[in-house]
């Protein structure tokens, strides 16, 4: 690992000022950055730890079961939070799929998102929760919807010095579910990740959201598939149409883990499957 200057600012403004310098990197849980530095794919001259900044971690639940999750919250805490499990099930399930327990005790939800891997396991759950991402810098604060955060693999709309501080998940859907398509039980990257969330009212789908990971340069919402579902009574034929529409929205690549064709086919399968689970949860 190349040497670097290490900073532990105690305010966001100071962290932002340091992060705006050339060749600076933010350190959250370190599970991506430290490994990158060992491999010399990351060679920052300064590393700015966020761990001494107060109020960046923790999960708070609002009266409408909306949830606010600090960016420095460990993914293990997201996974084990009863409120997240109950109201934003797809996110808890996604968090539980990351690495191993040892890694989830280090990795943060903010780091998982800021790293901007199209295959991040928490991203599909945040997409279907319609999460709002709070961003701070020395200039002030702004909020970006999660589906507008990513611009490419490893790329986001974050500008120089901007830091993700928290995720706000508004009032939840009545049921959601995430499936990671993988070979190994643990310690695997998603071939694809699919999350669905539905709101049911008197047996009619009032609202549906489908989030797809690792099937495009950025995580995406399958909006055409969502629109097909809205206002309809769920039937196997309807779910099949939604699965096909979600697959049509995917533009995956072939890589050493699997082919683009397989990914597209599995988007169809897993969209139907996650919708079935989400609908089942919504009717319980």
């Amino acid at each position: 690992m190349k040497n670097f200057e290490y900073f532990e600012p105690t305010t966001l403004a100071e962290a932002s000022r340091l992060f705006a310098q050339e060749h600076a990197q933010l350190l959250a849980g370190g599970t991506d950055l430290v490994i990158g530095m060992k491999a010399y794919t990351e060679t920052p001259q300064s590393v700015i730890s966020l761990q001494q900044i107060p109020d960046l971690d923790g999960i708070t639940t609002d009266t409408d079961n909306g949830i606010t999750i600090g960016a420095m919250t460990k993914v293990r805490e997201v996974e084990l939070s009863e409120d997240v499990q109950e109201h934003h099930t797809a996110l808890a399930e996604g968090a539980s799929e990351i690495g191993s327990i040892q890694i989830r005790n280090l990795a943060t939800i903010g780091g998982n998102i800021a790293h901007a891997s199209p295959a991040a396991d928490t991203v599909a759950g945040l997409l279907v929760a319609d999460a709002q991402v709070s961003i701070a810098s020395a200039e002030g604060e702004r909020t970006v919807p999660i589906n507008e955060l990513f611009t490419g693999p490893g790329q986001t709309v974050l500008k120089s010095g901007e830091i993700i501080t928290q995720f706000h998940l508004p009032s939840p859907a009545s049921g959601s579910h995430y499936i990671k398509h993988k070979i190994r039980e643990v310690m695997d990257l998603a071939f694809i990740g699919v999350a669905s969330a539905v709101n049911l009212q008197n047996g009619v789908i009032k609202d549906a959201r489908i989030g797809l990971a690792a099937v495009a340069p950025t995580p995406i919402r399958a909006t055409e598939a969502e629109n097909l579902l809205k206002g309809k009574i769920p039937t196997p034929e309807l779910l099949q149409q939604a699965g096909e529409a979600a697959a049509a929205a995917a533009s995956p690549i072939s890589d050493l883990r699997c082919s683009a064709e397989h990914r597209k086919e599995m988007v169809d399968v897993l969209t139907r499957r996650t919708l079935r689970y989400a609908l089942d949860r919504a009717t319980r």
Partner: protein
Amino acid sequence: MAKHPVSLTVNGDEHDLLIEPRKTLLAVLRDTIGLTGTKEGCSTGDCGACTVIVDGKAVTSCMVLGVTASGKEITTIEGLASEGELHPIQQAFIDTGGYQCGFCTPGFIMASKALVDENPDRTEEEFRHALGGNICRCTGYTKILEAVLQAAEEIRATS
């Protein structure tokens, strides 16, 4: 590059150190403090050999910068036995033959200890899944799982 003052409590002993920020917690434990029980396997977080317990949580110490562990309480394999008595998990690994070459053993024992401390009532399947971040190339895992289940039962019985 400046070294940073770091205070660590390791197995109950306080250490005030000056360390380079690029040193991982694993390197600090092994090279600076001299506790070589914790092993370096893959060094990329995949194998779990370097697992230690930081503030009650099992973590892969190869992914932690030593400077970020300042003020924290760390338990390594050297800290488990007390007054010449092995920890029940250590004893169970011996009783069942849950180790062969021994390289993965400290990591398995520390990961298991954190699991048992958190909840000894896990099923075999749950322990198997929860230990998925630790790799062993000798045993085939059967004896390791036996050891963990035996220790969990003993800890349940005495608590």
